[in-house]
């Protein structure tokens, strides 16, 4: 439209039209700028997403490539499962996986019991010294067992539990973090529920089992995810405590395996082993992505 204004129009109308055209242009250029910055912003973020995926793509590429092809940089269409077969036969990864499952599940099972009891006491039983004991629990959050690895090793040694699965699990049987999480959930449940159950003659432990635990399921789920992923991935402590293959965990097995092949260019094997170790968690994560992420949002600190 522009300047082809009809000169026969009255002055004020001509001015009016000029103004709207001007505004339109201003609005349009603002919109264009916004779109441009949006595009740029998305482009930068997509680059980051791509960069973040490189290690995963790389390890997958090498795990499925024949040995000689992995050294070259180019993309090769060769595909093989030999690496996995060789790795599975070269180290007892099946045993490691079973051990990891046992240890992780064992820790979690005991934690559930200890933290449910303690959380209930802190939430609903006003006993003498409660706040002092609560403070004692706080300290474990600040100083996690990772830091005390060396003294804990000696204690496990004194107990004669070196190189046992129980030795790996023992320091984690109490989780102050879980107690805090659950105490909060218990406190938020209406006290009337407990009173009603009491009138009907339920015992305290019965109330805990039939009211508090079922109503706090989401919190238990959050804690399960945090606890299981932490212990599935833990390395240094199980490394120190165990020294025989029967008791080694996946992470330790992977560490040993990668170290033993360090000299040669057996990176295809190491990549395959790395994939074997990470796949269970990665699949779990992809399947339950939403729950995983929201549970991390709720739970805060690891441990």
């Amino acid at each position, binding site marked *: 439209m522009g300047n082809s204004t009809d000169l026969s129009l009255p002055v004020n109308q001509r001015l009016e039209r000029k103004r709207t055209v001007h505004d339109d242009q201003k609005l349009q250029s603002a919109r264009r700028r916004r779109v441009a910055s949006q595009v740029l*912003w*998305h482009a930068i*973020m997509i680059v980051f*997403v791509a960069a*973040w995926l*490189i*290690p*995963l793509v*790389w390890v997958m590429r*090498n795990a499925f490539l024949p040995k000689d092809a992995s050294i070259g*940089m180019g993309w090769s269409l060769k595909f093989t499962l030999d690496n996995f077969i060789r790795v599975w036969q070269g180290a007892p990864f099946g045993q490691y996986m079973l051990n990891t499952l046992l240890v992780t599940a064992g820790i979690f099972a005991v934690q559930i019991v*200890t933290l449910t*009891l*303690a959380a*209930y*006491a802190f939430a609903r*039983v006003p*006993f003498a*010294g*409660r706040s002092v004991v609560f403070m*004692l629990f706080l*300290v*474990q959050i*600040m*100083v*996690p067992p990772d*830091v*005390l690895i*060396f*003294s*804990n090793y000696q204690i496990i040694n004194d107990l004669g539990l070196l190189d046992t699965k129980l030795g790996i699990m*023992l*320091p984690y049987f*109490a989780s*102050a973090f879980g107690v805090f999480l659950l105490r909060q959930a218990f406190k938020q449940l209406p006290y009337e529920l407990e009173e009603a159950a009491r009138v009907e003659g339920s015992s*305290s432990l019965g109330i805990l089992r039939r009211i508090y635990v079922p109503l706090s399921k989401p919190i238990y789920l959050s804690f399960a995810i945090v606890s299981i*992923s932490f212990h*599935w*991935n*833990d*390395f*240094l402590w199980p490394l120190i405590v165990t020294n025989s293959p029967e008791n080694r965990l*996946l*992470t330790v097995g*992977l*560490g040993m395996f*990668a170290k033993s092949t360090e000299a040669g260019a057996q*990176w295809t094997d*190491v990549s395959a082993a*790395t994939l074997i*170790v*990470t796949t269970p*968690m*990665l699949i779990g*994560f992809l399947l339950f*992505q939403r729950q*995983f*992420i929201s549970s991390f*949002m709720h739970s*805060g600190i690891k441990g």
Partner: protein
Amino acid sequence: MNTRWSEKLRRNGFGWGLVLPSLLFLCMFTYYPMLKSAGLSLFEKNLAVRNPVFVGLDNYKALLHDPVFIEVFRNNIWFAVGTVPVSMALAFALALFADKAIRGKGMVRVAFFYPNMIPMIAAASIWLFLYMPQFGLFAKFASWIAGSEVNLLGNPDTVLASLIVMTIWKEAGYFMIFYLAGMQQIPKDLYESASVDGVGVWKQQLRITIPLTMPTTLFVTVVAITNAFKWVDHLWMMTKGGPDHASSLLLYYIYETTFNFNDQGMAAAMTVVMIVMLLIISCLQFVGWERKVHYQ
């Protein structure tokens, strides 16, 4: 009176009975080891001195004069300085992106969060390969920039930075989750009214998002700093703290002193230093939370 007393006794017994199992494990694996480390740190006990000799604060004095400890301590500070702000800034940007982007939101979350789901030892073995001279993808990239072949993990000047990059990759997604949670709590009409008033997108972030996610920032800072002192698995796998202690961190040095040099007194003294540091960092968090409660 009598029944009230017995009721009180019963309640106390019940409460203590409930916390007892947890308390037992806590005493065994948190309090006892802490006290034991504190005690042992006052003794000389190593391969040469089998029966501990009381030396007072000598172990601590020796730490101050141990060039390796000083270097390791400095490394750890640099490690924290390198990882904390960058991974937090990235996490913030990514959360902004994952919060607003309509399509591909899930993809962004998965891409950034998956490093968190894999063990540090596995991440380390992947990155070891990526950094390996001649074959590694990143090593090739670095050589291409430098114009000559670079051994990123074998050079004292580049090794710490290489590990920092990997740690940022591992951690940014974890912090992103907290920022996402924080951002979702900000009422959307704040942004709408800002837009109506003609406030630009950048200014909106500066005036709305950043101040309203301050509590998250505080929380993430403390978690990130604590983590910077706890990561060790990657050192075992990638560098063993070398070359020449250039990449060693505190907890790894404690591990080495204990299990390779068998110097228990010194290791205990270093453990005490770490505990004190972690307690200070965590206390800062509590002070921060108190402040947050005030301005809410």
